[in-house]
């Protein structure tokens, strides 16, 4: 039998202050990056604008493309290599021209340059201002609905305290993922949002497993004198191999998507990849630890023990 952990007994909860500090640093770094870069970089899904993806027969130089586009007054577009030295995307903000106009002008400009003429326009996307704005609003609703549903579910299956702690942990994962997106200069797109929502639903799973174990243990026999903190730590240790193994298989899937999934899926795969890692970490260190601190605080206030996450 291969075992990842043999009777693990790490003092996770005892080191929770370090974890809080670490999380705070991660989130702070992400937030600083976002603020320094003027907010998240919205993809055209949310910001609106036009995107043209072109594949050239020969790898061109970016300056060459820019010079060519400048002849049709599109010289200030954002031009990026896209997964392959022959493949480029050209982005234009809203208002420059209609998608029709842009793709016609791009085509004309490229055709006018002998070294760029052998090219194929593979994708054109245009999102108008109203659609982008609608999607922004809907995205916020979707994330909030996701969080509320998870909160209600856990509050219903366990208790409110556990639900709130789980949500804080999940929200932590969302923040860390967004920070990672900003640090790596990736765009926030519809597929990234889909990845975030998936993380919201998935990352809470390990937390449920740990809570469930805690409840089961407390229902059986609690050694005398064991504090709530120790009980939580035991539950996390007992479910540690599960937490890590389940995350590992999903981690494999996301890593493969990141490597082989192609450029179009890359940002989504990256978000899932980061989310799975931070989701596992936050189960151990944030969700469990918060319930302990909250319970301790309540007990300290009331001066009598109170059960958390232990109601059947």
């Amino acid at each position, binding site marked *: *039998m*291969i075992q990842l952990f043999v009777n693990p007994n790490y003092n996770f909860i005892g080191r929770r202050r370090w974890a809080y500090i670490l999380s705070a640093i991660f989130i702070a770094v992400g937030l600083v990056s976002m603020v320094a870069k003027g907010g998240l970089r919205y993809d055209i899904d949310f910001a609106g604008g036009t995107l043209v*993806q072109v*594949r050239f027969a020969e790898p061109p130089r970016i300056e060459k493309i820019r010079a060519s586009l400048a002849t049709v007054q599109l010289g200030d577009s954002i031009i990026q290599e896209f997964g392959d030295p022959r493949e480029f995307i050209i982005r234009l903000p809203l208002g420059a021209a*209609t998608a*029709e106009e842009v*793709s*016609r002008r791009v085509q004309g400009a490229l055709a006018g340059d002998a070294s760029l003429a052998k090219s*194929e*326009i*593979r*994708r*054109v*996307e*245009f*999102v*108008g201002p*109203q659609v982008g704005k609608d999607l922004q609003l809907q995205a916020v609703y*979707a994330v909030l*609905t*996701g969080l509320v*549903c*998870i909160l209600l*579910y856990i509050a219903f*299956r366990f208790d409110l305290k556990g639900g709130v702690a789980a949500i804080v942990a999940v929200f932590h994962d969302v923040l860390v993922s967004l920070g990672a997106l900003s640090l790596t200069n990736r765009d926030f797109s*519809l*597929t990234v*949002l*889909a990845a975030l*929502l*998936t993380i*919201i*639903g*998935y990352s*809470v*799973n390990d937390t*449920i*497993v740990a809570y*469930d174990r805690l409840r*089961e243990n407390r229902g059986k026999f609690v050694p005398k004198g064991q504090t709530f903190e120790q009980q939580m730590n035991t539950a996390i240790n*007992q479910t540690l*191999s*599960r937490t890590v*193994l*389940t995350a590992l*298989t*999903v981690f*494999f*899937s*996301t890593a*493969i*998507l990141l490597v*082989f*999934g*192609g450029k*179009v*899926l890359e940002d*989504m*795969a990256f978000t*899932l990849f980061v989310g799975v890692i931070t989701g596992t970490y936050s189960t151990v260190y944030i969700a469990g630890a918060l319930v302990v601190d909250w319970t301790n605080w309540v007990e300290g206030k009331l001066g009598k023990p109170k059960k958390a996450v232990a109601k059947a």
Partner: protein
Amino acid sequence: MPRRLWARLAVVAVVVLGSLWFLYPPKKPINLGLDLQGGIHLVLGVETHKHVQSQTDRAAEDLKGSLERKGIALKRIAREGEAVIAVELASPQTWNDVLTVTSEFQRFERRDEDQAAGRLKLVMSERQVQQLRDDAVRQGLETIRNRVDQFGVAEPTITRQGTDRILIQLPGVQDPARAKALIGKTALLEFKLLDDRTPVEQALAGQLPDASEVLYRRDVDRQTKAERKVPYVVQKRTLLTGAELTRAEVQADPNSPGGWQVSIEFNATGTRIFGEVTEQSVGKLLAIILDGNVYSAPRINERIPGGRAVITGQFTIEEARDLAIVLRAGALPAPVVILEERTVGPSLGADSIRQGLIAISASAVIVFVFMLFYYRLSGLIANVGLGLNLLMLIACMAAFGATLTLPGIAGIALTIGMAVDTNILIFERIREELKVGKTPRSAIEAGFRRAFTIVVDTHATVLVTAMILYNFGTGPVRGFAVSLFVGLAASLFSAYFFSRLLFDLLYGRRQKVAQVSI
């Protein structure tokens, strides 16, 4: 073998055979999204207020006619805003007659009446305005569907989205510019007389009678693509529109070798009006106007009784064909604007499919190997379950006609990693039970039983978020939500029910099970 085992075997057999049945004719069992097969996705916004405006304009025109017939002189009649007609009488004496006439316009309510000054306003009721806006979208949708059908696109999707949007998906269309021109054209065909009393130079200088306007003919040079605009002074009054048209056909243009024209034929009403108009205006120039652009302005030599006309404009065969289509399908009641457009070429779609398949296979292989390595025979059981899971996922998508998109492929790859989570939860529990000294069979029994609630809980949270995503998302993201949802739902069966069955088959019959390979 106990009876329950037979029943469970039968359930699995039904599921497997059912899945295979849905997949059986293997030609394209699954709909591919536009991002995979290439095509155009368009969201059009219908400018419904323009429909209300034009209806109000028409009512104002009618009202003016009715009042004039009754000999009531007007100082002013004009549309204000979207749906208000302001009327100002030349003399307040005619007030009561005016009230009689306006009461016939039932869509409007009288407001701001000022008898002394002879002023009143006719306001369209809010309900009428809403009705007109709704009509504009519904008719627009029908017209566009008609055009697309005539254009010939396999399996187009044309649906209403929200109150004033139309979603159009055209898979496999090679020439997006042409398709968009065909769909987005208002195609309002109008016949108007030229104003031969106002010289063009004078009109361009701004000295234009109220009843006239300047419109242009756009001549595009085929080689240089340079556009030349030729101005015409046209009377505003529309004599006839394309609404009275019955036929529109492509013909070779006799005056321009290699060029094409569109011949049109009016219905009975149109033929009568056309006959009258041409009779009254012999010697004048009649402008043929499409969407505000003059196409030609031939001289009327005599009364034209047959209700036929041609539209010339140096068309290529494709342009002429598309023009004939839009004329036959009719004009959009209101102009549309493109709010969102996503065009994917077929080569990009093919690349995406290839990369997606690689990702799914690689994901399956690595998870497969890992499970086998870590859990041995039990891992193999999990892997067989994983295979069943994928089979069910694909069969469900085929059965329900769900659309597979590129993010949907990512969803499948992700499902592979998540589906075995159920097995891991169960196996870890079984190991624990074994560790406390249970016999293999009771450990398996306890493992499955105790892991059940957890399996349900963990599925529930992801399924809920998948549902939220489905409700939120459009196209590609929706595809992701679908494959995630279906894949996870199927894993409840394959990773729990089916694995359990395999365990029972393997370890259940033999009385002595020394150990479990887990």
